[in-house]
Protein backbone atom coordinates (compact mmCIF):
# COMPACT_ATOMS: atom_id res chain seq x y z
CA UNK A 1 0.00 0.00 0.00
CA UNK A 2 1.31 3.44 -0.92
CA UNK A 3 2.59 5.52 1.97
CA UNK A 4 0.44 8.57 2.71
CA UNK A 5 1.66 11.71 4.46
CA UNK A 6 -0.01 11.78 7.84
CA UNK A 7 -0.42 14.80 10.07
CA UNK A 8 1.95 13.19 12.52
CA UNK A 9 4.64 12.64 9.90
CA UNK A 10 4.25 16.21 8.72
CA UNK A 11 4.60 17.47 12.29
CA UNK A 12 7.78 15.45 12.66
CA UNK A 13 9.13 17.07 9.52
CA UNK A 14 8.36 20.53 10.88
CA UNK A 15 9.83 19.62 14.26
CA UNK A 16 13.00 18.47 12.51
CA UNK A 17 13.24 21.75 10.61
CA UNK A 18 12.94 23.87 13.75
CA UNK A 19 11.52 23.36 17.25
CA UNK A 20 9.84 26.77 16.91
CA UNK A 21 6.65 26.16 14.91
CA UNK A 22 6.67 29.55 13.16
CA UNK A 23 10.29 29.32 12.10
CA UNK A 24 9.72 25.71 11.04
CA UNK A 25 6.91 26.92 8.81
CA UNK A 26 9.24 29.48 7.21
CA UNK A 27 11.93 26.85 6.67
CA UNK A 28 9.37 24.52 5.15
CA UNK A 29 8.34 27.27 2.71
CA UNK A 30 12.02 27.89 1.86
CA UNK A 31 12.54 24.20 1.17
CA UNK A 32 9.43 24.06 -0.99
CA UNK A 33 10.58 27.13 -2.94
CA UNK A 34 14.00 25.57 -3.52
CA UNK A 35 12.41 22.33 -4.73
CA UNK A 36 10.00 24.11 -7.08
CA UNK A 37 12.86 26.03 -8.66
CA UNK A 38 15.05 22.93 -8.88
CA UNK A 39 12.41 21.04 -10.87
CA UNK A 40 11.70 24.11 -12.99
CA UNK A 41 15.36 24.65 -13.80
CA UNK A 42 15.69 20.96 -14.62
CA UNK A 43 12.76 21.37 -17.00
CA UNK A 44 10.26 18.99 -15.34
CA UNK A 45 6.78 19.46 -16.82
CA UNK A 46 4.89 19.39 -13.47
CA UNK A 47 7.21 20.74 -10.75
CA UNK A 48 4.57 20.90 -7.98
CA UNK A 49 3.79 17.16 -8.23
CA UNK A 50 7.45 16.31 -7.92
CA UNK A 51 7.90 18.68 -5.02
CA UNK A 52 5.09 16.91 -3.13
CA UNK A 53 6.59 13.53 -3.93
CA UNK A 54 10.02 14.64 -2.68
CA UNK A 55 8.65 16.09 0.54
CA UNK A 56 6.56 12.96 1.14
CA UNK A 57 9.61 10.74 0.81
CA UNK A 58 11.67 12.91 3.13
CA UNK A 59 8.85 13.00 5.70
CA UNK A 60 8.49 9.23 5.45
CA UNK A 61 12.18 8.65 6.20
CA UNK A 62 11.98 10.95 9.21
CA UNK A 63 8.79 9.19 10.36
CA UNK A 64 10.60 5.88 10.13
CA UNK A 65 13.26 7.27 12.41
CA UNK A 66 16.08 7.70 9.92
CA UNK A 67 18.88 9.96 11.13
CA UNK A 68 19.67 12.68 8.60
CA UNK A 69 22.78 14.72 9.25
CA UNK A 70 22.97 16.88 6.10
CA UNK A 71 19.32 17.73 5.54
CA UNK A 72 19.82 19.99 2.47
CA UNK A 73 22.05 17.43 0.78
CA UNK A 74 19.61 14.64 1.61
CA UNK A 75 16.67 16.58 0.15
CA UNK A 76 18.73 17.21 -2.99
CA UNK A 77 19.47 13.50 -3.29
CA UNK A 78 15.78 12.62 -3.02
CA UNK A 79 14.76 15.40 -5.44
CA UNK A 80 17.35 14.22 -7.96
CA UNK A 81 16.05 10.66 -7.66
CA UNK A 82 12.47 11.82 -8.20
CA UNK A 83 13.64 13.79 -11.22
CA UNK A 84 15.49 10.80 -12.69
CA UNK A 85 12.41 8.61 -12.17
CA UNK A 86 10.26 11.18 -13.92
CA UNK A 87 12.54 10.95 -16.94
CA UNK A 88 11.85 7.25 -17.35
CA UNK A 89 9.17 6.59 -19.91
CA UNK A 90 9.10 10.27 -20.69
CA UNK A 91 12.15 10.32 -22.96
CA UNK A 92 10.05 10.45 -26.12
CA UNK A 93 8.05 13.35 -24.73
CA UNK A 94 11.23 15.22 -23.77
CA UNK A 95 12.77 14.65 -27.17
CA UNK A 96 9.67 15.93 -28.90
CA UNK A 97 9.59 18.95 -26.61
CA UNK A 98 13.25 19.70 -27.29
CA UNK A 99 12.68 19.29 -30.99
CA UNK A 100 10.02 21.93 -30.92
CA UNK A 101 11.25 25.46 -31.33
CA UNK A 102 10.42 27.30 -28.07
CA UNK A 103 9.95 30.52 -30.02
CA UNK A 104 7.23 28.72 -31.95
CA UNK A 105 5.70 27.55 -28.66
CA UNK A 106 5.71 31.09 -27.32
CA UNK A 107 4.27 32.36 -30.57
CA UNK A 108 1.56 29.68 -30.51
CA UNK A 109 0.63 30.55 -26.95
CA UNK A 110 0.62 34.21 -27.79
CA UNK A 111 -1.32 33.60 -30.95
CA UNK A 112 -4.54 34.77 -29.31
CA UNK A 113 -4.92 38.43 -28.75
CA UNK A 114 -1.47 39.24 -27.39
CA UNK A 115 -2.24 42.86 -26.59
CA UNK A 116 -5.44 41.95 -24.74
CA UNK A 117 -3.63 39.25 -22.78
CA UNK A 118 -0.89 41.63 -21.79
CA UNK A 119 -3.50 44.12 -20.70
CA UNK A 120 -5.16 41.43 -18.56
CA UNK A 121 -1.83 40.51 -17.00
CA UNK A 122 -1.20 44.13 -16.12
CA UNK A 123 -4.64 44.38 -14.52
CA UNK A 124 -3.85 41.26 -12.50
CA UNK A 125 -0.49 42.70 -11.48
CA UNK A 126 -2.17 45.86 -10.24
CA UNK A 127 -4.76 43.82 -8.30
CA UNK A 128 -2.02 41.69 -6.76
CA UNK A 129 0.09 44.72 -5.88
CA UNK A 130 -2.90 46.29 -4.13
CA UNK A 131 -3.22 43.15 -2.00
CA UNK A 132 0.30 43.66 -0.65
CA UNK A 133 0.88 45.84 2.42
CA UNK A 134 2.03 49.37 1.50
CA UNK A 135 5.52 48.74 2.81
CA UNK A 136 5.93 45.66 0.61
CA UNK A 137 4.56 47.52 -2.42
CA UNK A 138 7.11 50.28 -1.97
CA UNK A 139 9.89 47.82 -1.33
CA UNK A 140 9.40 45.78 -4.47
CA UNK A 141 8.81 48.78 -6.72
CA UNK A 142 11.88 50.57 -5.43
CA UNK A 143 14.13 47.52 -5.36
CA UNK A 144 13.57 46.65 -9.01
CA UNK A 145 13.64 50.18 -10.40
CA UNK A 146 15.52 50.28 -13.68
CA UNK A 147 18.35 52.65 -12.94
CA UNK A 148 21.42 50.58 -13.41
CA UNK A 149 23.89 53.30 -12.53
CA UNK A 150 22.77 54.04 -9.00
CA UNK A 151 21.12 50.70 -8.24
CA UNK A 152 23.66 49.70 -5.58
CA UNK A 153 23.42 53.04 -3.75
CA UNK A 154 19.64 53.05 -3.97
CA UNK A 155 19.35 49.53 -2.57
CA UNK A 156 21.82 50.38 0.19
CA UNK A 157 19.76 53.41 1.14
CA UNK A 158 16.57 51.35 1.04
CA UNK A 159 18.08 48.71 3.35
CA UNK A 160 19.18 51.43 5.76
CA UNK A 161 15.76 53.05 5.72
CA UNK A 162 14.08 49.72 6.47
CA UNK A 163 16.74 48.89 9.07
CA UNK A 164 17.66 45.52 7.55
CA UNK A 165 20.89 44.16 6.04
CA UNK A 166 21.22 44.35 2.24
CA UNK A 167 21.19 40.57 1.90
CA UNK A 168 17.92 40.38 3.79
CA UNK A 169 16.52 43.15 1.58
CA UNK A 170 17.42 41.22 -1.56
CA UNK A 171 15.85 38.03 -0.20
CA UNK A 172 12.71 39.88 0.81
CA UNK A 173 12.42 41.50 -2.64
CA UNK A 174 12.89 38.17 -4.39
CA UNK A 175 10.30 36.45 -2.22
CA UNK A 176 7.87 39.30 -2.86
CA UNK A 177 8.50 38.98 -6.57
CA UNK A 178 7.83 35.23 -6.42
CA UNK A 179 4.65 35.85 -4.44
CA UNK A 180 3.52 38.49 -6.90
CA UNK A 181 4.27 36.21 -9.85
CA UNK A 182 2.19 33.42 -8.26
CA UNK A 183 -0.69 35.81 -7.61
CA UNK A 184 -0.60 37.17 -11.18
CA UNK A 185 -0.52 33.65 -12.60
CA UNK A 186 -3.60 32.48 -10.69
CA UNK A 187 -5.46 35.76 -11.35
CA UNK A 188 -4.68 35.53 -15.06
CA UNK A 189 -5.79 31.89 -15.24
CA UNK A 190 -9.08 32.85 -13.58
CA UNK A 191 -9.63 35.81 -15.90
CA UNK A 192 -8.85 33.69 -18.93
CA UNK A 193 -11.39 31.07 -17.84
CA UNK A 194 -14.21 33.60 -17.52
Amino acid at each position, binding site marked *: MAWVLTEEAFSKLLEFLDPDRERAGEKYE*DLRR*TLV*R*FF*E*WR*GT*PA*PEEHVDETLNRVARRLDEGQVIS*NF*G*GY*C*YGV*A*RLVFMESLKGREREIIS*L*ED*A*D*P*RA*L*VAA*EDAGDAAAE*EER*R*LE*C*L*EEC*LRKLPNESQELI*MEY*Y*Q*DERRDKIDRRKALAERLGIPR*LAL*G*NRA*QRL*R*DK*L*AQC*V*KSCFTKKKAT
Partner: protein
Amino acid sequence: MEPTSNSKRMIRRYLLGELPEAERAALEEKYFTDQVVFEQVVQTENELVDSYVRGRLAPRERAQFERHYLAHPERRERMRFAKSFLTKLDQTETAKAVAGESSTIAKSWLRRLFASISSPGFSLGFSMALAAVLLILGGSWLLFENHRLRRRLAETGETQASYARRERELERQIADERKRADQLADEVERMRAQSQTASPGANRSGNVFPELVAMDLTSNGIRGGNAEKPPTLIIRRETKRVRLRFNVEAHDYSRYRMGLRPVGGKEVWSRQGLAPKPSPEGASFVVIVPAEKFAAGDYILTLGGENDTGAVVDVSKSFFRVIKK
Protein backbone atom coordinates in the same frame (compact mmCIF):
# COMPACT_ATOMS: atom_id res chain seq x y z
CA MET B 1 25.98 38.88 -0.58
CA GLU B 2 26.26 39.70 -4.28
CA PRO B 3 27.54 36.75 -6.33
CA THR B 4 31.00 37.24 -7.84
CA SER B 5 31.15 37.73 -11.60
CA ASN B 6 32.55 34.20 -11.96
CA SER B 7 29.82 32.52 -10.00
CA LYS B 8 27.25 34.71 -11.75
CA ARG B 9 28.56 33.51 -15.11
CA MET B 10 28.34 29.92 -13.95
CA ILE B 11 24.79 30.41 -12.67
CA ARG B 12 23.78 31.98 -16.00
CA ARG B 13 25.19 28.98 -17.82
CA TYR B 14 23.26 26.70 -15.45
CA LEU B 15 20.02 28.55 -16.16
CA LEU B 16 20.69 28.44 -19.90
CA GLY B 17 21.34 24.67 -19.76
CA GLU B 18 25.00 25.03 -20.73
CA LEU B 19 26.69 23.48 -17.67
CA PRO B 20 28.02 19.94 -17.87
CA GLU B 21 26.11 17.49 -15.65
CA ALA B 22 28.82 17.25 -12.95
CA GLU B 23 29.01 21.04 -12.49
CA ARG B 24 25.25 21.28 -12.63
CA ALA B 25 24.86 18.71 -9.83
CA ALA B 26 27.55 20.44 -7.74
CA LEU B 27 25.77 23.78 -7.98
CA GLU B 28 22.42 22.18 -7.16
CA GLU B 29 23.81 20.50 -4.06
CA LYS B 30 25.30 23.84 -3.02
CA TYR B 31 22.04 25.74 -3.30
CA PHE B 32 20.14 23.00 -1.48
CA THR B 33 22.53 23.25 1.46
CA ASP B 34 23.11 27.01 1.44
CA GLN B 35 20.12 29.36 1.26
CA VAL B 36 22.42 32.28 0.32
CA VAL B 37 23.54 30.45 -2.81
CA PHE B 38 19.93 29.65 -3.67
CA GLU B 39 18.97 33.32 -3.42
CA GLN B 40 21.93 34.17 -5.66
CA VAL B 41 20.62 31.77 -8.30
CA VAL B 42 17.14 33.29 -8.04
CA GLN B 43 18.59 36.80 -8.26
CA THR B 44 20.64 35.86 -11.33
CA GLU B 45 17.57 34.29 -12.91
CA ASN B 46 15.55 37.46 -12.35
CA GLU B 47 18.35 39.57 -13.84
CA LEU B 48 18.63 37.25 -16.82
CA VAL B 49 14.89 37.33 -17.50
CA ASP B 50 14.71 41.11 -17.03
CA SER B 51 17.65 41.60 -19.39
CA TYR B 52 15.92 39.45 -21.99
CA VAL B 53 12.69 41.43 -21.68
CA ARG B 54 14.58 44.73 -21.94
CA GLY B 55 16.50 43.44 -24.99
CA ARG B 56 19.86 43.67 -23.23
CA LEU B 57 21.17 40.14 -23.80
CA ALA B 58 24.03 39.52 -26.21
CA PRO B 59 22.84 37.77 -29.41
CA ARG B 60 24.35 34.39 -28.49
CA GLU B 61 22.90 34.46 -24.97
CA ARG B 62 19.56 35.65 -26.29
CA ALA B 63 19.41 32.78 -28.76
CA GLN B 64 20.25 30.26 -26.02
CA PHE B 65 17.66 31.85 -23.73
CA GLU B 66 15.00 31.44 -26.39
CA ARG B 67 16.10 27.91 -27.23
CA HIS B 68 16.53 26.56 -23.69
CA TYR B 69 14.95 28.77 -21.06
CA LEU B 70 11.73 29.47 -22.91
CA ALA B 71 11.26 25.75 -23.65
CA HIS B 72 9.61 25.29 -20.24
CA PRO B 73 6.05 26.58 -19.63
CA GLU B 74 6.74 27.73 -16.05
CA ARG B 75 9.85 29.60 -17.17
CA ARG B 76 7.94 31.19 -20.04
CA GLU B 77 5.43 32.30 -17.41
CA ARG B 78 8.28 33.96 -15.48
CA MET B 79 9.29 35.82 -18.61
CA ARG B 80 5.71 37.02 -19.17
CA PHE B 81 5.43 38.12 -15.57
CA ALA B 82 8.71 40.05 -15.93
CA LYS B 83 7.31 41.76 -19.02
CA SER B 84 4.23 42.99 -17.12
CA PHE B 85 6.23 43.83 -14.01
CA LEU B 86 8.80 45.90 -15.90
CA THR B 87 6.05 47.69 -17.81
CA LYS B 88 4.42 48.57 -14.49
CA LEU B 89 7.75 49.76 -13.07
CA ASP B 90 8.33 51.96 -16.12
CA GLN B 91 4.83 53.40 -15.86
CA THR B 92 5.30 54.17 -12.17
CA GLU B 93 8.71 55.78 -12.72
CA THR B 94 7.39 57.90 -15.56
CA ALA B 95 4.37 58.98 -13.58
CA LYS B 96 6.69 60.00 -10.73
CA ALA B 97 8.97 61.91 -13.09
CA VAL B 98 6.03 63.66 -14.75
CA ALA B 99 4.49 64.52 -11.40
CA GLY B 100 7.85 65.87 -10.19
CA GLU B 101 8.42 68.05 -13.26
CA SER B 102 4.80 69.24 -13.35
CA SER B 103 4.98 70.15 -9.71
CA THR B 104 8.19 72.16 -10.27
CA ILE B 105 6.64 73.99 -13.20
CA ALA B 106 3.43 74.59 -11.24
CA LYS B 107 5.29 75.91 -8.20
CA SER B 108 7.30 78.33 -10.27
CA TRP B 109 4.26 79.65 -12.14
CA LEU B 110 2.11 79.81 -9.05
CA ARG B 111 4.70 82.02 -7.36
CA ARG B 112 4.50 84.46 -10.28
CA LEU B 113 0.72 84.16 -10.35
CA PHE B 114 0.40 85.17 -6.70
CA ALA B 115 2.85 87.97 -7.20
CA SER B 116 0.71 89.28 -10.09
CA ILE B 117 -2.56 89.02 -8.16
CA SER B 118 -1.11 90.95 -5.26
CA SER B 119 0.13 93.68 -7.60
CA PRO B 120 -1.95 96.82 -8.39
CA GLY B 121 -2.76 95.72 -11.98
CA PHE B 122 -5.04 92.84 -10.99
CA SER B 123 -6.62 92.33 -14.45
CA LEU B 124 -3.16 91.85 -15.86
CA GLY B 125 -2.55 89.40 -13.03
CA PHE B 126 -5.73 87.50 -13.85
CA SER B 127 -4.69 87.16 -17.49
CA MET B 128 -1.34 85.87 -16.41
CA ALA B 129 -2.99 83.37 -14.09
CA LEU B 130 -5.04 82.05 -16.95
CA ALA B 131 -1.94 81.82 -19.11
CA ALA B 132 -0.16 80.01 -16.30
CA VAL B 133 -2.91 77.39 -16.00
CA LEU B 134 -2.83 76.83 -19.74
CA LEU B 135 0.95 76.54 -19.67
CA ILE B 136 0.85 73.98 -16.86
CA LEU B 137 -1.67 71.88 -18.77
CA GLY B 138 0.36 72.18 -21.96
CA GLY B 139 3.60 71.36 -20.17
CA SER B 140 2.10 68.23 -18.60
CA TRP B 141 0.73 67.12 -21.95
CA LEU B 142 4.16 67.62 -23.55
CA LEU B 143 5.84 65.55 -20.85
CA PHE B 144 3.34 62.71 -21.33
CA GLU B 145 3.78 62.90 -25.07
CA ASN B 146 7.55 62.88 -24.67
CA HIS B 147 7.34 59.73 -22.56
CA ARG B 148 5.01 58.05 -25.05
CA LEU B 149 7.44 58.77 -27.89
CA ARG B 150 10.36 57.41 -25.87
CA ARG B 151 8.45 54.18 -25.33
CA ARG B 152 7.68 53.98 -29.04
CA LEU B 153 11.37 54.46 -29.76
CA ALA B 154 12.28 51.63 -27.37
CA GLU B 155 9.69 49.37 -29.01
CA THR B 156 11.10 50.21 -32.44
CA GLY B 157 14.54 49.25 -31.16
CA GLU B 158 13.20 45.85 -30.13
CA THR B 159 11.56 45.36 -33.51
CA GLN B 160 14.83 46.20 -35.23
CA ALA B 161 16.62 43.64 -33.07
CA SER B 162 14.06 41.06 -34.10
CA TYR B 163 14.59 41.93 -37.79
CA ALA B 164 18.35 41.58 -37.31
CA ARG B 165 17.82 38.11 -35.85
CA ARG B 166 15.61 37.14 -38.78
CA GLU B 167 18.24 38.46 -41.20
CA ARG B 168 20.94 36.35 -39.58
CA GLU B 169 18.68 33.31 -39.83
CA LEU B 170 18.08 33.98 -43.54
CA GLU B 171 21.80 34.43 -44.15
CA ARG B 172 22.41 31.06 -42.56
CA GLN B 173 19.72 29.49 -44.76
CA ILE B 174 21.25 31.07 -47.87
CA ALA B 175 24.68 29.72 -46.90
CA ASP B 176 23.16 26.24 -46.44
CA GLU B 177 21.40 26.45 -49.80
CA ARG B 178 24.61 27.59 -51.47
CA LYS B 179 26.51 24.69 -49.92
CA ARG B 180 23.83 22.28 -51.12
CA ALA B 181 23.97 23.69 -54.64
CA ASP B 182 27.76 23.33 -54.67
CA GLN B 183 27.46 19.76 -53.48
CA LEU B 184 24.90 19.05 -56.20
CA ALA B 185 27.19 20.54 -58.85
CA ASP B 186 30.09 18.43 -57.57
CA GLU B 187 27.89 15.36 -57.56
CA VAL B 188 26.81 15.97 -61.13
CA GLU B 189 30.41 16.51 -62.20
CA ARG B 190 31.48 13.28 -60.53
CA MET B 191 28.66 11.33 -62.16
CA ARG B 192 29.51 12.80 -65.52
CA ALA B 193 33.18 11.86 -65.10
CA GLN B 194 32.16 8.33 -64.10
CA SER B 195 29.87 7.99 -67.10
CA GLN B 196 32.60 9.21 -69.43
CA THR B 197 35.00 6.65 -68.01
CA ALA B 198 32.40 3.92 -68.45
CA SER B 199 31.52 5.04 -71.96
CA PRO B 200 34.30 7.08 -73.52
CA GLY B 201 32.22 7.92 -76.55
CA ALA B 202 29.33 9.43 -74.62
CA ASN B 203 28.18 12.76 -75.91
CA ARG B 204 28.51 15.66 -73.47
CA SER B 205 25.32 17.16 -74.71
CA GLY B 206 23.23 14.52 -73.06
CA ASN B 207 23.25 10.95 -74.37
CA VAL B 208 24.04 9.62 -70.92
CA PHE B 209 21.94 12.10 -68.89
CA PRO B 210 19.32 13.36 -71.30
CA GLU B 211 17.96 15.77 -68.69
CA LEU B 212 21.28 17.55 -68.28
CA VAL B 213 23.52 19.23 -70.85
CA ALA B 214 26.91 20.61 -70.02
CA MET B 215 29.14 23.21 -71.59
CA ASP B 216 32.56 24.59 -70.70
CA LEU B 217 33.14 28.25 -71.43
CA THR B 218 36.16 30.49 -71.32
CA SER B 219 36.31 34.23 -71.63
CA ASN B 220 34.76 35.21 -74.99
CA GLY B 221 34.51 31.70 -76.29
CA ILE B 222 34.42 28.01 -75.70
CA ARG B 223 37.53 26.12 -74.81
CA GLY B 224 39.19 24.80 -77.94
CA GLY B 225 36.51 26.34 -80.09
CA ASN B 226 36.74 28.74 -82.98
CA ALA B 227 36.90 32.31 -81.66
CA GLU B 228 34.89 33.67 -84.57
CA LYS B 229 32.12 31.16 -84.30
CA PRO B 230 30.27 31.30 -80.96
CA PRO B 231 29.99 28.03 -79.06
CA THR B 232 26.63 26.37 -79.35
CA LEU B 233 24.48 24.85 -76.68
CA ILE B 234 21.85 22.43 -77.88
CA ILE B 235 18.87 22.16 -75.59
CA ARG B 236 16.53 19.28 -76.36
CA ARG B 237 12.96 18.86 -75.23
CA GLU B 238 13.95 16.45 -72.47
CA THR B 239 16.68 18.77 -71.14
CA LYS B 240 15.81 20.13 -67.72
CA ARG B 241 19.10 21.62 -66.52
CA VAL B 242 22.17 23.15 -68.09
CA ARG B 243 25.51 22.84 -66.38
CA LEU B 244 27.88 25.66 -67.26
CA ARG B 245 31.51 25.70 -66.27
CA PHE B 246 33.17 29.06 -66.70
CA ASN B 247 36.97 28.99 -66.64
CA VAL B 248 38.99 32.12 -65.94
CA GLU B 249 42.75 32.60 -65.84
CA ALA B 250 43.04 34.64 -62.66
CA HIS B 251 40.83 35.37 -59.70
CA ASP B 252 41.30 38.33 -57.38
CA TYR B 253 38.04 38.21 -55.45
CA SER B 254 36.81 35.78 -52.85
CA ARG B 255 33.20 35.92 -54.08
CA TYR B 256 31.79 36.33 -57.57
CA ARG B 257 28.50 36.98 -59.29
CA MET B 258 27.43 35.26 -62.48
CA GLY B 259 24.66 36.57 -64.72
CA LEU B 260 23.02 35.33 -67.87
CA ARG B 261 21.15 37.40 -70.46
CA PRO B 262 20.17 37.14 -74.09
CA VAL B 263 22.11 39.54 -76.34
CA GLY B 264 20.25 42.85 -76.23
CA GLY B 265 17.89 41.58 -73.52
CA LYS B 266 17.45 41.66 -69.75
CA GLU B 267 19.16 39.31 -67.33
CA VAL B 268 17.24 36.02 -67.02
CA TRP B 269 19.28 34.32 -64.32
CA SER B 270 21.97 35.20 -61.79
CA ARG B 271 23.82 33.75 -58.84
CA GLN B 272 25.75 35.66 -56.15
CA GLY B 273 28.41 34.66 -53.65
CA LEU B 274 30.10 32.11 -55.91
CA ALA B 275 33.43 30.84 -54.64
CA PRO B 276 36.10 30.11 -57.27
CA LYS B 277 37.39 26.54 -57.52
CA PRO B 278 41.10 26.35 -58.32
CA SER B 279 41.79 24.71 -61.68
CA PRO B 280 44.95 24.16 -63.80
CA GLU B 281 43.98 27.18 -65.91
CA GLY B 282 43.30 29.47 -62.94
CA ALA B 283 39.84 29.08 -61.51
CA SER B 284 36.50 27.71 -62.56
CA PHE B 285 32.89 28.32 -61.61
CA VAL B 286 30.27 25.65 -62.02
CA VAL B 287 26.60 26.54 -62.02
CA ILE B 288 23.43 24.73 -62.92
CA VAL B 289 20.80 26.77 -64.73
CA PRO B 290 17.24 25.54 -65.33
CA ALA B 291 16.80 24.82 -69.06
CA GLU B 292 13.58 26.81 -69.08
CA LYS B 293 15.61 30.00 -68.65
CA PHE B 294 16.90 29.65 -72.23
CA ALA B 295 15.17 30.47 -75.48
CA ALA B 296 16.80 29.99 -78.89
CA GLY B 297 19.29 32.79 -79.60
CA ASP B 298 22.59 34.33 -78.54
CA TYR B 299 23.48 34.69 -74.88
CA ILE B 300 26.09 36.45 -72.76
CA LEU B 301 27.36 34.92 -69.53
CA THR B 302 28.98 37.57 -67.32
CA LEU B 303 31.25 37.12 -64.33
CA GLY B 304 31.80 39.89 -61.80
CA GLY B 305 33.87 40.05 -58.61
CA GLU B 306 32.11 41.18 -55.41
CA ASN B 307 34.18 43.76 -53.53
CA ASP B 308 34.03 44.60 -49.81
CA THR B 309 31.24 47.12 -50.26
CA GLY B 310 29.10 44.55 -52.06
CA ALA B 311 29.52 46.23 -55.45
CA VAL B 312 30.17 43.98 -58.45
CA VAL B 313 33.12 44.65 -60.75
CA ASP B 314 33.02 43.09 -64.23
CA VAL B 315 35.72 40.43 -64.61
CA SER B 316 34.91 38.40 -67.68
CA LYS B 317 32.19 37.42 -70.12
CA SER B 318 31.47 34.77 -72.67
CA PHE B 319 29.12 34.60 -75.68
CA PHE B 320 27.35 31.47 -76.82
CA ARG B 321 24.43 30.44 -79.00
CA VAL B 322 21.45 28.38 -77.90
CA ILE B 323 19.62 26.12 -80.28
CA LYS B 324 16.42 24.48 -79.11
CA LYS B 325 15.45 21.12 -80.58
